[in-house]
């Protein structure tokens, strides 16, 4: 299938869904699912191909180019697959809510725009799709109104700032190289001065940094993620912020080029190291803040910021293994974070919108499938061996240690322990512990919610045991950037860059579990008891609830409280308040009276005439 047809299909699906929503709800659901499935299948069929198409018409005289390579394919696949699963998840989540047609159309539009971003082959079409994506995302985030509107506004303002920076960068590149196609730009920039490359990197970095929520541009993400509808949070966290990662990869290794990028900066402190340090700061700050969250989705949102830090650290560290790790971690994170947001969404759906970690508990008895999925997701998030998160993080750590950045490795590793803490808090406060009486009759998640979660959970484990499958694509991307190949085997990688064989580890863990299970079986059997039979110092368990999970890490939080405030968010808030005040002042000029405006014009003209008379500049 050719690329323009693919994009047309994606955009047309969105439009068709919106038209049909006025006619028949069931038909609309069916079309939405079919459209997203078709797009995913079409993207999958493009595996391994490298195509470049120029669209017939251009735009303002510039040609619009679409192309696909390994990098674009991987991102397009992630976008279309996660998008498709989130549409399926939405089927029950959105039932009975207002403006469903608008929601579906926008969801598909965001997916289409993201596809456009990763498929575009020149800066102009990249910018167009980027804007479409930003707009439609804003509409989706603020779809619930109220606090969601404020969250959407925050996102939108930061996004616009990024877009402007990007536009300036594009103009700069065009002025320097005279072309907008990536292939031409790369050739032109390699001849340009390092200052130009650095400037482009910084300008694009602002745009992509905002989107991928790298510190200090992360402030929009937590409110936006927690206020958006859950299926869209999955898309938002799973793939949309990864568009920033795509942009970084594009800028660093395609537009500027690997050699050009890695040689930027000073010898003692290259630019890519600075970027890696920013990634590390993102990890540690976001992880510590995530520990203190009491809202399920907000906790996951901060965790997204932290994981984006890992990805950023990987791709900007700039060794073959690190970049492979970064890209693989993007894929892992897309899968398990979409899964976790869906699990949180399923809980939210069944409990009537409860996301407060302090008031849930014990849902494992009522929603076992959701729990299993969430457990696997959290294991992936932590990076427990046999999940995909382990492989990608292992690659990053490995190269950080062997290539001489132990302090970055330390931050990445300690971030993992922080992840254990908040990951367990998420699991424990929602699913473990005692079931409150008001949820005694809770039903399990509906099938259309369980299906995407189960698929994603299976992918987490599959890519964890056989990481060779995604690593083959990642390796192809790396080679297209000019890195050495990794020597991918089904169980991981083997070769001089480092050895990992998940199949061995898998076998060892399976043997360990079987052995432990045999020991367990050897013991005397016991009886199954309910939650009322719990040790309560001899007393009977109170009828309502014996155990609460409030303030889970209280001692730690007390210790860390002074550092847990987010100065960056406060800075943006202050800036916003200042701008509003300044604008209020400026608004006084606009009195609304025509006479005043006429007076301004006359004054301005008078001033011009005065200037002309006195200095005669024209």
């Amino acid at each position, binding site marked *: 299938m050719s690329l323009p047809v693919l994009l047309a299909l994606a955009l047309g699906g969105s439009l068709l869904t919106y038209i049909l929503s006025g006619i028949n709800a069931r038909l609309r659901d069916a079309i939405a699912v079919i459209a997203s499935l078709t797009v995913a299948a079409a993207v999958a069929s493009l595996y391994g191909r490298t195509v470049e198409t120029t669209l017939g018409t251009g735009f303002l005289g510039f040609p619009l180019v679409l192309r696909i390579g390994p990098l674009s394919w991987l991102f397009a696949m992630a976008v279309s697959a996660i998008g498709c699963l989130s549409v399926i998840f939405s089927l029950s989540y959105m039932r009975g809510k207002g403006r469903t047609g608008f929601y579906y159309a926008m969801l598909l539009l965001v997916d289409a725009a993201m596809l456009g971003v990763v498929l575009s082959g020149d800066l102009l079409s990249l910018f167009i799709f980027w804007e479409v994506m930003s707009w439609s995302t804003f509409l989706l985030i603020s779809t619930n109104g109220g606090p969601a509107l404020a969250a959407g506004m925050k996102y939108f303002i930061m996004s616009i700032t990024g877009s402007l920076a990007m536009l300036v960068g594009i103009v700069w590149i065009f002025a320097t190289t005279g072309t907008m196609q990536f292939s031409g730009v790369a050739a032109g920039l390699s001849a340009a001065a390092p200052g130009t490359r650095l400037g482009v990197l910084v300008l694009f970095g602002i745009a992509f940094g905002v989107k991928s929520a790298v510190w200090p541009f992360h402030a929009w993400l937590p409110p936006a993620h927690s206020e958006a509808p859950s299926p869209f949070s999955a898309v938002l966290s799973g793939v949309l912020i990864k568009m920033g990662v795509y942009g970084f990869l594009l800028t660093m290794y395609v537009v500027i080029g690997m050699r050009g990028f890695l040689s930027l900066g000073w010898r003692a402190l290259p630019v890519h190291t600075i970027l890696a340090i920013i990634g590390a700061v993102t990890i540690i700050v976001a992880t510590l803040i995530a520990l203190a969250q009491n809202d399920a989705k907000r906790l996951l949102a901060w965790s997204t910021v932290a994981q984006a830090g890992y990805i950023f650290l990987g791709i900007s560290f700039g060794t073959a293994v690190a970049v492979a790790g970064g890209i693989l971690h993007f894929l892992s994170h897309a899968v398990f974070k979409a899964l976790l947001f869906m699990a949180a969404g399923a809980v939210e759906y069944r409990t009537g919108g409860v996301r407060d970690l302090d008031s849930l508990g014990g849902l494992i008895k009522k929603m076992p499938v959701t729990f299993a999925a969430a457990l696997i997701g959290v294991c992936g998030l932590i990076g427990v061996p046999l999940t995909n998160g382990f492989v990608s993080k292992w690659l990053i750590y490995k190269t950080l*240690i062997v290539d001489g950045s132990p302090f970055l*490795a330390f931050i990445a590793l300690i971030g993992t322990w922080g992840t254990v803490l908040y990951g*367990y808090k998420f699991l*424990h406060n929602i699913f473990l512990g005692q079931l409150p009486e008001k949820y005694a009759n809770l039903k399990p998640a509906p099938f259309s919610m369980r299906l995407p979660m189960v698929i994603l959970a299976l992918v987490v484990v599959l890519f964890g045991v056989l990481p060779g499958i995604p690593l083959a694509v990642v390796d192809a991307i790396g080679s297209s950037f000019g890195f050495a190949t990794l020597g991918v085997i089904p169980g991981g990688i083997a070769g001089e860059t480092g050895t990992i064989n998940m199949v061995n580890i898998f076998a060892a863990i399976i043997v360990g*579990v079987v*052995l432990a299970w045999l020991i367990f079986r050897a013991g005397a059997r016991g009886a199954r008891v309910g939650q009322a039979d719990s040790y309560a110092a001899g007393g009977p368990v109170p009828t309502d609830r*014996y*155990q609460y999970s409030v303030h889970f890490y209280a001692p730690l939080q007390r*210790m860390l409280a002074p550092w847990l405030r987010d100065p960056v968010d406060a800075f943006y808030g202050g800036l916003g308040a200042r701008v509003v005040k300044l604008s209020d002042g400026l608004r006084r000029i606009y009195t609304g009276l025509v006479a005043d405006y006429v007076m301004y014009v006359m004054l301005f003209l008078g001033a011009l005439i005065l200037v002309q008379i006195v200095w005669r500049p024209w």
Partner: protein
Amino acid sequence: MRILGFVISPLAALAVGIFFLGLTRRFMARTQWRYGPPLYQPLIDMLRFFTQKSVSHGAIFDLGVILSLAGSLVVVLFLPFGRICPLQGSGGLLVVLYLMLLAPLGLALSAGEAANPNSSIGISRMFALALGYEVPLLLIVLAAMTRYDTISIVEIVAAQRAAVPNLATFPLVLSGIAYLLILPALLGLRPFDVAQAPQEISSGPLAELGGRYLALAQIQNALSLFIGISLFVNLMWGGASNPLVFFLKMLVVFAFGLWISASFPRLRVEQAVRYLWRWPTLLAFVGLLLVVVIRR
């Protein structure tokens, strides 16, 4: 030989771990001017737990305990015991660091499903304390990995045996001291046993485990004693060429840990974390810094 290693190494670890458990009780008794139980008392206890009927709170309650033990068993396979090391080239120390995570995570899942407030408090303390000692531990492990430029434990051991003691080994001395300072926290011994404080939170995560569940938790405890000490001997003290020497080295390190453990009263979580993030972290940090500087 390699297949045999898969059998010998967990069994040896278990034997050593259970011996250490018995030694702990005996040592504590003698410091308190008591006679103390026989050294094989933990074995009797485990046998008793196994033959007692127990209660289960659900599937995750079972799975968590099994996972916890399985994680420790697999870690043991990665650690050289003398020359015995069944899993050499499968990710090395990084995988060990990650697998060491399975044990507390499994126990936490199990205790979470038990739905007892004491367990919840215990887990919260356990994880907070883990974050406390992981900071210096990671710095120490990273210092070792950076110093020898590999992530394989076997290679680290080999490099230590090949090297003559000189100024370049000095930075690891600091890391070693830091390791000894956090050893009781790593092993869950007295000044840092707030997670399982029996008097205040009824053994914490173990509060609802009875019968075979407790037996599994005890075996895991024994293995974790082995892991914590054997990691030190391998990374900081050059391992050993035969198991007996290795065991003797472990004994010396463990005696040091017991000495600290018997001398100090229990710390609160904040106190423990504050301690762990102060002196051991500082030492480990300086150690890592020196390693990096010398490597340049």
